[in-house]
């Protein structure tokens, strides 16, 4: 009995590590290609046979991207818009998620469905009216218009996502708190909300990645170069004269870094949620 169990455990572990390594390789394969391309010399970028390890290494593309274009500015723009969108989305979406989970009033499901329905309209089809509206309100080439649109398009997702987290928390907790004298509001903020930290962290990542990589709205709403976001900056590298692979890959490589940083930071919150034991009970 013990040896069979041990064998099963070993097999399980081999399978787990094997599969994860395979998937990791598949995930990183294109990214490694991108990073290696970003340090290849200009004349060598597209070559045949395709070479992985560059014969000559250069960082000229990186300096080019950050000194000879507005990419640094685009980074700042993306950071600001992302941060604001996360704040606003979490604010509206978390409250909405709580209501979706705990509320028992007539028409609740109908209202929730309407909220979800707003993201069923393909973004590309509302571009023109959104543009006209923004123009009329003098919101073109501002951060605000981007934050407003992105928030509106992410709130439904965050709401439904946070609802799931609220659902997983027993209502008995709130009832206990209210019996002890908390008002429903206090019960929500002091007792329930802290328990949803893994959900908030995940939602923040979701929104950040969405805003960081969003292209079509960012392209349409800004004609002034200083207000552009990173994906539009990347678009410039698909020039009229061919794709500027070196600079494009350098920009892509640097663009991933902040998200990875955020992801690693928020990873701990996931773990915190576990060790605090609040949900595990």
């Amino acid at each position: 009995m013990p040896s069979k169990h041990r064998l099963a455990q070993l097999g399980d572990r081999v399978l787990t590590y094997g599969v994860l390594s395979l998937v990791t390789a598949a995930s990183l394969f294109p990214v490694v290609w991108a990073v290696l391309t970003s340090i290849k010399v200009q004349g060598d970028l597209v070559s045949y046979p395709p070479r992985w390890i560059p014969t000559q290494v250069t960082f000229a593309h990186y300096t080019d991207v950050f000194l000879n274009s507005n990419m640094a500015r685009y980074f700042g723009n993306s950071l600001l818009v992302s941060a604001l969108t996360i704040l606003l989305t979490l604010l509206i979406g978390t409250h909405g998620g709580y209501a979706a989970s705990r509320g028992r009033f007539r028409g609740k499901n109908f209202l929730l469905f309407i909220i979800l329905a707003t993201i069923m309209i393909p973004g590309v089809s509302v571009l023109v009216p959104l543009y006209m509206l923004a123009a009329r309100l003098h919101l073109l080439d501002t951060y605000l218009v981007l934050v407003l649109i992105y928030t509106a398009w992410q709130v439904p997702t965050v709401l439904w996502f946070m609802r799931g987290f609220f659902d997983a928390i027993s209502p008995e907790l709130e009832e206990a708190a209210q019996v002890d004298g908390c008002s429903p509001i206090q019960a929500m903020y002091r007792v329930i909300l802290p328990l949803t930290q893994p959900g908030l962290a995940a939602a923040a990542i979701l929104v950040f990645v969405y805003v960081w990589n969003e292209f079509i709205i960012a392209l349409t709403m800004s004609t002034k170069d200083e207000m552009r976001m990173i994906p539009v900056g990347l678009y410039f590298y698909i020039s009229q004269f061919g794709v500027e692979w070196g600079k494009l890959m350098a920009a892509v490589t640097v663009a991933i870094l902040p998200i990875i940083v955020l992801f690693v930071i928020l990873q701990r919150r996931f773990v915190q949620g576990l060790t605090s034991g609040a949900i595990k009970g």
Partner: protein
Amino acid sequence: MKRTTAQAYNRAHASVAGGETTRRRFLLTSTWVLAGVGAGTIPRFAAQAAGKAKITYWTPLDPKSKNLRSEAETAMIDLFRNRHPDIEVEVQPIPWQNIGTQTIQSVMAGRGPDVVQFSTYDLPIQVEAKTTAPLNNFMSKSWLAANQGDFLLPWENTVYGGQTMGLYWNSLLGSSLWHRRDLLEKKGLKVPKTWEEIATIGASVQTPQVAGYLTGLSKSGNAVQLTNWLIPSMWAAGSEFLAKDGRAAFDNPEGARPLEWLADLVYKYKVTPPNIVSLTRDNVLDAFSAGTAAMVHCSSNIVSSARSSAVVGKVMGLADSPGPTAAKPAPALVIGKTIAMTRVAKEREAAWLFIEHMTGRGAQTINAKIAQEPPCRKSVLKDPWFQTPEAADLKVQIEYMIRYPHPFQYHPKNNILADMLAEGSQQVIANRRPALEVLQDVAKKWNATIGLA
């Protein structure tokens, strides 16, 4: 369950104090941040020095970039700034794929640039969309007398309803035959002069790694890789492209010959791979630059991109695009990017001066020397620089353009036609449909689209 609930509750209660202050801090920070963003929405009014007129210029070239073309345009604009210190020029780079659409959107919304640089096929569309401003009033009789005849491309090409709606910013050769001199010389072969020779020479030089001939039939980028080659090839075969009223004129056996030839390259001579159905112009450029294609048809504006390749830069050659017979090459498809004023331009005089300058001899000479752009002016060609080795590529292409011209103006709905032709040619290669049948289908659809049954 009760015990665990109480535990959880107590634990949560213990964190209440911390929770309170963090929440307050959170609310405070977000208020500040939102206020800051609100402030950022106040439109920034450019400080206008007394008496300075300000114009906004939209261009696909990023002034901050350190490539030759951006540097050339910056030099052209700086020359203007020196000559007209009372005019301020704000340069906004716009991705070239989007500049037409963005101009229409902007002008419709009542705001927009004063001057725009359009792609080769965009001006007719912009005129239909009524975004451009007529320029006749700015062109005095004496100016016309001195300048009208100096443009390489037909003056009438940019005239709509009697009004000039834009001027050519450069001249562009739609397609010439790029080839690998080293591969041809190795086999002792000469540069092909007929379609047949492309096939046979391609078969001789090709290897499993290097295709004899490559092209791309993708719809992206207005299917320029396809149409830049197809249109002059139809002319060479003896067919017109479109009639004067826009009706399709290519649905005849002559018009079908180029696509039949291409299908033969793929299936009979096997010098072209069938995956050309999805290749874009950028793919073709990259393949040639990487050394995996022996011959391609490509446009003049990306010659320098291929020249910068370490693999083929020194061994590539340019030749006139072969015709069906050795008698003469295919007609040159001579097109050009245009520069125009929008109808929402406020400082019209200043905008005109800018347009006049950018298409003038001084600026065009800079563009040619620094960016290797064929100028829009004939007089610029007299500059001795064009006889230097530096200008060799330009010389070959310009001579081709001058010796074998064929008048051509894009139709206002050329983007729809290009899409149909790309789809059709993909069917010829991927589904092996007869070229004539496909072209007849396209002609029917096209004629219906423009309202001519």
